[in-house]
């Protein structure tokens, strides 16, 4: 098992602790166990690739509040075993931090997770944590980031300062995985900063709301979380120094949500890459109480633009996302999410559907079952997702919440 530097021993300790969850006043301990089976539905062009995998993961979480609730300690870790992909076998600390509140001030020290942004189909401004693509390719999973965070709250807004010592590099799936990049990634990345992965990054964010408008302005200076990398000319991931300015706005009026995120990324040295601007914007509209209150239906559309156009190193340079969200009003909270991305330049399309529902008690745990499927069609040889053209899959998972 490949174990990252992020402390293996506390997790072993936790595993010994596993038993009935503890809920004492001011202390909470629980863990989730997820069992997943994935099958790839097409024959891969590369026979070395596997066509199914099975995995079990565990995520223990411990929280302790003291000082009359003004101080909160959180420890969340994660570990997975996978029968076919060694890269997915890993242990990580998601959170290990202390938050302290004093009046309008809040401080956090330790490994933390932060989310910025308003859009659903891509998270452009969200720059603090490294994305964990080992868990899923939707970019929603993040690695814990070492940080010192200081926040001053005002009436309807907050100003937050971050000092981010220590960098966490992106991990890549093993080449045998059908959803992996089509080449082996060198695991000794290069950094633009002379301090390598010890460069201290800084960030600042002002966010709040006024009436129906929620907004956020942010600035990040430091090592980019996105490596510059490709399978042709640059197989060693390169992490450049950047300044990134972010804007996020959402208006919420009746059943309409309008959303906009934009970033400007400037590289400290123009030799590293071109500066660029990227935007995602769209709406979400909800129909409530459809079919005599049986379900609610949300309709989403978001457009993605990147000023680099076809030179962009991301999938979303001129793409449209359409999504449906069906939330059933049953006791099992059944839910169906369906989405499609269409590249407006070359018509490359990808589809994804996720359905889940609560499934009662298993042992003493609450449980939820989920079915997910993803497919690509019309993939253009010039599209970044060309290597994924034969990676359609179906994923069945059962999650137990202890």
């Amino acid at each position: 098992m490949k174990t990252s530097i992020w402390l293996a021993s506390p997790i072993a300790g936790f595993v010994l602790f596993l038993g009935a969850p503890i809920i004492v006043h001011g202390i909470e301990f629980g863990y989730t166990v997820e069992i997943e089976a994935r099958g790839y539905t097409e024959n891969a062009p590369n026979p070395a690739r596997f066509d199914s995998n099975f995995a079990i993961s565990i995520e223990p979480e411990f929280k302790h509040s003291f000082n009359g609730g003004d101080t909160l300690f959180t420890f969340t870790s994660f570990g997975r075993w996978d029968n076919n992909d060694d890269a997915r076998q890993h242990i990580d600390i998601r959170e290990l931090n202390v938050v302290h509140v004093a009046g309008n001030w809040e401080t956090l020290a330790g490994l933390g997770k932060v989310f910025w942004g308003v859009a659903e189909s891509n998270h452009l401004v969200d720059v603090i944590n490294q994305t964990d693509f080992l868990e899923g390719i939707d970019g929603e999973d993040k690695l814990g980031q070492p940080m010192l965070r200081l926040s001053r709250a005002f009436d309807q807004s907050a100003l937050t300062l971050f000092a981010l010592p220590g960098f966490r590099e992106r991990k890549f799936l093993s080449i045998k995985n059908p959803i992996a990049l089509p080449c082996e990634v060198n695991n000794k990345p290069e950094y633009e900063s002379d301090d390598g992965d010890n460069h201290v990054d800084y960030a600042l964010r002002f966010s709040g709301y006024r009436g129906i408008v929620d907004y956020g302005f942010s600035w990040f200076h430091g090592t980019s979380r996105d490596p510059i990398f490709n399978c042709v000319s640059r197989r060693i991931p390169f992490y450049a120094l950047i300044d990134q300015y972010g804007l996020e706005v959402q208006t919420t009026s009746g059943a309409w949500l309008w959303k906009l995120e934009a970033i400007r990324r400037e590289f400290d040295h123009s030799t590293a890459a071109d500066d660029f601007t990227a935007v995602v914007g769209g709406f979400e509209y909800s129909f409530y109480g459809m079919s005599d209150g049986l379900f609610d239906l949300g309709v989403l559309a978001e457009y993605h633009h990147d000023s680099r156009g076809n030179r962009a190193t991301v999938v979303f340079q001129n793409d449209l996302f359409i999504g449906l969200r069906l939330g059933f009003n049953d006791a099992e909270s059944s839910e169906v999410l369906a989405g499609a991305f269409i590249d407006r330049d070359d018509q490359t399309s990808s589809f994804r559907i996720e359905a889940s529902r609560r499934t009662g008690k298993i042992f003493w745990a609450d449980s939820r079952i989920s079915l997910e499927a993803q497919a690509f069609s019309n993939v253009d040889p010039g599209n970044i997702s060309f290597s994924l053209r034969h990676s359609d899959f179906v994923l069945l998972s059962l999650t137990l919440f202890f």
Partner: protein
Amino acid sequence: MPFVKVIVKTIIVAQLGFLTLFGLTFNLAFAQTAEERGTEIAIAADQRDSGWKHITADMEMILRNRAGRESRRKITNRQLEVDGDGDKSLSLFKQPKDVAGTAMLTFSHGLVADDQWLFLPSIKRVKRISSKNKSGPFMGSEFAFEDLASQEIEKYTYKLLREEACGEGYQCYVIERIPQYESSAYKRQITWIDKDQYRNIKVEFYDRKDSLLKTLEMTGFKEYAGGYWRADRFEMTNHQTGKSTRLNWKNYDFESPLDDQDFSQNALKRLL
């Protein structure tokens, strides 16, 4: 909210003054209409329950389907009274565990749309959400969002129907109230309010077609610090589906202080 109350009260006082004058001039008996009397009682009930400033309480929700199968939810709640506007509330979901850690922050504004944010703990995201879904069921239960929302005077018009015995030996005002806010599932509600302490004892909910949809009954009243009464148990029965939901309230605390910073987007991220 007191601002609204003052307006409503002023209108009522003006109307009463006018009617009294009218009565004297024409030598008529006291001529208060059933609507005025109903509104007066609603205001009195609201005033009896004003000034609590902040509350925390735990709620256990037991959903029962027609076959008697049960499922449970646990939620901790905090509320902050706001001068001149609707209350602020924060709900943290504890069970079922697939939603544990999810929290909802609501700033209610009476007839104007509420501001509402949802915290998703797995990705640490605070998301502004639409508050338009008033009539939808809360967590699959027989309680609609509007049934659990902050109750401001201006959200309804009132009419005193009669006075009668109700609940566990109370004498009650029976008041019909008609929702004035948008997207309500109800044509009207009938509430039973006890004459002694102005507590809500029972509510009947009539759907848009005016058929009886649900009945809510409150029992196990206790008096808390400051003279505020709260029921331990809410029983909601849906007459059209045969399903029911019971709320058991525990650990009411009117004393531990809370302020605006306990009802902020930052606060959503540091709950236990």
